[in-house]
């Protein structure tokens, strides 16, 4: 090619290139707004018929064409809560091990293994949950929990239900939270840690009194990211949650989540109002995850600014 700096064709080629990349970038904007618009348009019938009652009604009856989101929202929040309660301490502890305790080789090996755990598709967790984990829970864990009794552990144990769904979700978000937390732990300047060690503090004291305090906002950001992921997880939950539209106080009981309801019923919905209600469930899920994403985004950005990095 000829080198004609500033010639018209070169300027035009650059202009075209620039606008082409801008167009690709705008695709992302179009997709996100498209999702929002399509969900609202398609849930129009349900929005008109049920109004805000959709969000507080516990009925889900395709025969009488009466729909409410409460049981799905409950299942989504209950499984997510179980997952967060289990995954948070474990992932913090593993991150601590990776950063403070493990020799570099072990740390990189374990870190890789944890990241591979994050790469396994959710349907594999579902298979494992349904055929390996649920029978195990039924035979060994439920009898023990059943002895504790109380409203949380009552009712006939089926092996599938809210509790195993939450536990498998915990396993799925664990590597994700661990990876982000590890990166946050590594952001602590080693001078600060070395100073504490120099004062005679033990590794645990350095972690508890220096690293954790330094990293608390980063950890919260990581937890928000894990939370957003757990809320929308579909396949693993659909396999083991039991798929029943009801709210039971017991963790043994089968339930459903927004995502599992969509996965199960979307192609079966023949009536317009049924399909529209499913779209509205999707809209609810999209808004919930969006809120968590937005909070996490601004939280982490504020954190980076306060540390002095690039926003």
């Amino acid at each position, binding site marked *: 090619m000829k080198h004609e*700096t500033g010639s018209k064709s070169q300027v035009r080629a650059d202009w075209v290139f620039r606008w082409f990349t801008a167009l690709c970038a705008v695709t992302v904007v179009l*997709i996100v707004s498209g999702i929002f618009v399509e969900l609202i348009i398609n849930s129009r019938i349900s929005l008109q018929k049920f109004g805000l009652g959709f969000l507080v009604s516990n009925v889900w009856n395709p025969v009488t064409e009466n729909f409410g989101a409460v049981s799905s929202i409950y299942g989504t929040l209950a499984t997510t809560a179980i997952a967060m309660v289990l995954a948070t301490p474990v992932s913090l502890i593993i991150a601590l091990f990776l950063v403070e305790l493990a020799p570099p080789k072990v740390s990189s090996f374990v870190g890789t*293994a944890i990241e591979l755990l994050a790469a396994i598709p*959710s349907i594999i967790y579902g298979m494992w949950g349904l055929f390996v984990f649920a029978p195990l829970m039924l035979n060994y864990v439920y009898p023990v929990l059943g002895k504790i009794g109380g409203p949380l552990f009552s009712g006939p144990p089926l092996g599938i239900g809210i509790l195993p769904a939450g536990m498998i979700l915990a396993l799925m978000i664990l590597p994700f939270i661990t990876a982000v937390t590890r990166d946050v732990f590594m952001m602590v300047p080693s001078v600060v840690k070395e100073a504490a060690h120099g004062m005679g503090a033990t590794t645990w004291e350095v972690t508890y009194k220096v690293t954790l305090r330094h990293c608390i906002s980063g950890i919260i950001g990581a937890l928000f990211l894990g939370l957003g992921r757990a809320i929308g997880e579909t396949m693993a939950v659909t396999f083991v949650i039991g798929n029943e539209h009801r709210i039971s106080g017991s963790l043994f009981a089968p339930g459903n989540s927004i995502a599992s309801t969509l996965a199960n019923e979307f192609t079966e919905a023949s009536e317009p109002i049924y399909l529209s209600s499913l779209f509205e469930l999707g809209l609810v899920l*999209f808004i919930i995850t969006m809120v968590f994403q937005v909070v996490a985004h601004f939280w982490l950005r504020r954190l980076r600014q306060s540390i002095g990095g690039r926003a």
Partner: protein
Amino acid sequence: MRPRSNLIRRTINQTVMSISLLTSLVGILMLAWILYEVISRGAGAFNWSFFTKPPVPLGETGGGVANAILGTLLLTLLATVIGVPIGLFAGVFLAEFGHQSRLSSPVRFLCNILMGTPSIIVGVFVYSLLVVPLGHFSGYAGAIALAVIMIPLIARTAEDMLNLVPDTLRESALALGAPRWKVTLGVVFRAAKKGLLTGALLAIARVSGETAPLLFTALNSPYWPRSMSQPISNLTKTIYDYAMSPYADWHQIAWGASFLITVSVLLLTISARVILHERKR
């Protein structure tokens, strides 16, 4: 600070450290356990017809998932052809022209939102966008749903990788009189080649195991894929359908398909990591 005896402090320290060691071991063992179950149960499904034949009606023996293997390859290939260029050039925009444009910060933000959007929502979106107007499920709809998931992943890694290329390289190329597009495609891309490849591989790994976006788009089919405008067979939906069935034979096939998916996703992920680490050396 309240003075404490050294013995108690050291004991606490050692207890916490042992707990953290144990917990990490448990984490590794869980991975090993899942892999063990998938491999041991999946390998039992493998025979010649598993890889060469489409499914047979219930009750007959000798069926396989060959059509689903081909279908998943086709879906992933088409999704890659659509998703990688769009994601890559969106990343180019963010890294190369981003600082001059007011568009870049909202695009970056919406990329994060899209990455956090549940994949089933993407499936619902593509259903209403393509399946409803066209009147039937299709391989195209499935591939587009997968591409939508790839785009933000690739855009963000591409931006990060292009940002690692020093500006002096761009400036030297520009000073030689090369136009901007040539600088980007010929010089910056070459410098960031391995990073870009890693990003693409990770995105492909991610979508090749996706099920939720295919449920209402590509659906599934017991036949060989004939056309992308028809419902198309694929491994992940096959796993779902077979696992939900009450038949032990089908469960076996679902495990076999899980084995294939897990191994290919892990291999893609590991090779992406190997490529990236070569770069550092």
